[in-house]
């Protein structure tokens, strides 16, 4: 029975809110309604979903590639070295450095009057010659990458640590080149872990809210912002149930992603023992 507190916690803070969201999405004042789900087909809502997907996918791929390279660089060094400790600690902090502070850090650095922008401008380089991209999807992707890369390092390091040097020695003894080793041994072993971590990053970006809210407050460019708009709109009746429908759609998407992640994790854990 030691799991009872845990189950109670999960039920209160995870299952109950989810149930409220699911029921709310169909709650038509004393009956079941599909109006809210139908409203998900509105062009501006569909556009937000596409934006959310694009930003999450782009920032997770960027984060995964660069994060994996950084993690690999770390594992080539001393496992108990100072450098590794510094990098993992820094990643632990930066992976959770999001929200308004992060958005403002970027605004102050490369915003219209940012330090770097002004310095480059004085040297004849206008980074916003083709529009102020910091407040577009590309800018959001860049800002998200800032916490995606460190997160990738944290979740991918254990997989890289699981790669035994003996495998490489064995490959070389059997006449394999470095390319052969990566293509036939390390690559196939690390791929599930890499893809799984990428999916985790996707879910992480998909649900991020505060960073985007501080950076792009107009037009509900991604779904979390649409939910916020539906919940706390001053200029219309609060459309709580539409927010529930949006949240339900997000839950479904994240559930699919996390199911894939779990399957990939299972493959990875086979040889990580």
């Amino acid at each position, binding site marked *: 029975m030691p799991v009872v507190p845990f189950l109670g916690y999960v039920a*209160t803070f995870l299952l*109950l809110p989810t*149930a*409220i969201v699911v*029921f*709310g999405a169909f*709650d038509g*004042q*004393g009956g079941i309604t599909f109006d809210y789900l139908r409203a998900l087909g509105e*062009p*501006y809502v569909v*556009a*937000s979903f596409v934006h959310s997907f694009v930003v999450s996918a782009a920032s997770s791929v960027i984060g995964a590639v660069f994060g994996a390279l950084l993690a690999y660089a770390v594992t080539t060094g001393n496992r108990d070295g100072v450098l590794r400790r510094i990098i993992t600690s820094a990643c632990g902090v930066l992976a959770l450095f999001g929200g308004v502070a992060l958005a*403002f850090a970027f*605004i*102050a650095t490369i*915003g*219209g*009057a*940012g330090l770097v922008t002004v310095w480059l401008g004085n040297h004849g380089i206008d980074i*916003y010659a083709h*529009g*102020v991209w910091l*407040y577009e999807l590309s800018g959001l992707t860049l800002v998200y990458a800032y916490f995606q890369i460190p997160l990738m390092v944290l979740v991918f390091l254990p997989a890289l640590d699981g790669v035994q040097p003996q495998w490489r020695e064995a490959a070389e003894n059997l006449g394999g080149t470095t390319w052969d080793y990566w293509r036939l041994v390390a690559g196939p072993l690390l791929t599930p872990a890499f893809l799984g971590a990428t999916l985790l990053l996707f879910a992480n970006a998909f649900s991020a809210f505060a960073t985007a*809210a*501080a*950076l*792009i*407050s*107009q*037009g*509900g*460019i991604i779904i979390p912002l649409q939910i*916020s*708009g539906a919940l*706390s*709109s*001053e*200029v*219309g*009746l*609060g459309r*709580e*149930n539409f927010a529930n429908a949006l949240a339900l759609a997000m839950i479904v998407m994240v559930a699919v992603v996390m199911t894939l992640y779990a399957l990939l994790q299972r493959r990875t854990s086979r040889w990580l023992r």
Partner: protein
Amino acid sequence: MRHSGRYARVGVAVGAVLAIAGCAPPSTSGAPSTAATATSAAALGGMDALVAAAKKEGQLNLVSTAPDWANYAAIMAGFQAKYGIKINDDNPEGSSQDEINAVKRLAGTDRAPDALDIGVRELADTSLFAPYQVATWKDIPDAQKEPSGLWVQDYGGYMAIGYDSSKVSAITSVQDLLKPEFKGKIALFADPTASNSALSAVMMTSLANGGSLDDISKGVEFFAKLKKAGNFVPVAATKATVANGTTPVVINWDYLAVSFATDVPAWTLLIPSGAIVAGFYNQAVNKGAPHPAAARLWMEYLYSNEGQNLFLEGGARPVRMDAMTKQGVIDAPAAAKLPPVSGPGNFINLNQATAAKAYLVANWANAIS
């Protein structure tokens, strides 16, 4: 919340458990006092009786009352100093809708808000409010109060283009905003589909471009043009973005610009002639206020000469301004500091706001993306 069905009751039950577990302080008002139904201080036996009852409660709950909004920091400090009543201000950066949500969500708990400061849209459902008439009731123009006192306008202002005159050249009209020198410099501080004040900002540009209070489309077109020119940035303007020069031009209520001026002395306001949009906020007492006497005393304070002058100091125009000017009790230096207005203001009514909102929901995101 409009949940129906069983899961809502489960939610309430869990919420109640959490509230108990969250060691909420014991309610200060045991039996419902007569303050809860008093419609004026006189009904309670005069101001002294009201003050005594409020002091006994000892606390006042407010929600979404931003300290840097219309000088509320000084007003709250003044109230606390004068009566020794502690103010709890929850979620200070929230919207008017958040206040209504809080009234419904926290109903029956001692954390429910006592009094509200809300926009015109939130007056649609007055069943949440208790009627109360402040001592200075007759000074308030009839058009600016609900006859029984369910809501009363408190302070207001005009939609203005604020700009940092040390960073950009002087702005004389709405059309100036299209100039290339404003590239990446113009911002609102919220999404107009979600905020009354941002909606009024778009409405102001609509009036300047041949629209009317019934037709906000010209304003949306204007912002689409600004966006295309690269002048409009979708970042939420805050004191920080203004201070560091990211958003040197912000369109919002003139009395909110005061908080920018503390960091940016060169902050200048233009209330464009021919596009004068006025807006007042409203006070209401929560019918289920946990501190009914303190809620009413707060109202009395806001509408006293002292409270009204504090609004004025914050650059807002208090609702009793005309009467106080006649009575000679207005803070003349503060009144002289208000930005000049060249004509009568246009007030957006509830129906116009609803129509504008519907148009914005359908068109705003497309126009600025």
